[in-house]
Every structure is written in C-alpha cells, then in structure tokens.
C-alpha cells in the first residue's frame, strides 16, 4: 500500500485527506499522480509540490516502494 496524504486546499477539493493506494511493481510517482488526478481533477489542478516520505520529490520517474508515504501539496501559505 502507498499512503497518499492531502492537506488544506487540496484535501478540501478532493474531499479526502488520506487515501490508501494499492502498490504495484514498477509504479512511478508520475503514474500515481496521473491516476489520482483522473479521479480528483479539481484537487490536482492546484498541486505544486510532491513529497515522498517527507522529502520533496522532483523526479516524476521516481519508483515508489510498498509502504511509501506520498503527499501532493498546494503552494504553501504558512507564516
């Protein structure tokens, strides 16, 4: 399983803040993103940053491991 985390404006648009996604061999960050964006298009419109296990992930071809925690995040607005 991959744990998918959504926060604030992204979670509001997706109407969910956490999803469990079935892991499969060879799954990349881009593939995960595309599949989730297809079912939550409005939420993914505002996604600017992606993190895998708490570290920003800039390579869409990054392979995901079973048990990874992936966050799709809107532009930050703290402070």
């Amino acid at each position, binding site marked *: 399983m991959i744990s998918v985390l959504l926060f*604030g404006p992204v979670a509001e648009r997706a109407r969910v803040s956490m999803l469990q996604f079935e892991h499969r061999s060879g799954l990349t960050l881009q593939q995960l993103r595309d599949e989730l964006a297809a079912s939550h298009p409005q939420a993914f419109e*505002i996604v*600017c940053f992606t993190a895998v296990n708490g570290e920003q992930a800039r390579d869409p071809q990054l392979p995901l491991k079973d048990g990874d925690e992936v*966050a799709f995040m*809107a532009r*930050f*607005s*703290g*402070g």
Partner: protein
Amino acid sequence: MQDVKEAVRIQMEDFSQDEEIRALRASSKRIGGIATFLGCARDFSEDREVTQLGFEAYGSMALAEMNRLRDEAIIRFGLLDARIVHRIGTIEAGGQIVFIAAGAEHRGPAFDACRWMIDELKQRVPIWKKEVSPQGDSWVTPHP
C-alpha cells in the same frame, strides 16, 4: 533545563515572547542583539473582513524543514542561537501565528537572519492557511 521548550515547534497553543527570549538568552551570554519577527492574524484580507484563520501543516515534514531552516540560518549568518514557533489550528483575528528569533553577537546578522528565516519559511514549510469570514471559508492559494 527541564522547563525550556524545543527551539523549533509546531503547536496549537499560543506562545510567550518572554519565554522564547529567555530560552534564547540562556544559550549564550555572548548575544548582543536579538531580532524577532511575529506574524499576526489581521482582521481583513483584500478588503474582506476576516474573523479567524485556520492553519494546517504536514506536521512531520514541516517540523523537519523548520529545523533545517534554523540550522542553515545559524551557519549562514553566524548566529549564536535561533528559535521558530508556528501555530496550527484556529487563530482569532489579532492573534499570534508565527514567531522567529535570531540571536547574534551584533545586530546586523540578527536582523538579516530573522528576515531570511521568515522569507524561507513561507517558501519552504508545508503549512496552509484558511481565511474564515462572514462570507464563508477559503483556503489561501498564493499564485506563483
């Protein structure tokens, strides 16, 4: 040192400048200047009345990033110590949101570091703000 809180924190509760400054000063008697920044919840935004703000964080990542920010500032500006506190949850208009303090031998680096930390925090730390107004709630989504 049991009473001294962590130098970097994300918390629901309000914070005390006196407590943070006391902890900072206790770290070194070589500190000659402390610059701080306090972010407050304003009661308006783009001419709309705002009664409350709500903050949500990706807690573990935000805390790690804030710690990294502090470490970088200490090295980059030669600080003797620094502290960063950010609140999450609901904050009434006029309330305190974020506090940053930078202590150095002289005031120049303290000011530079404090300003750098708040600028970087806004760019790098996964926290999101919601404005609550009589017209309804809305998440703030800054444009690139």
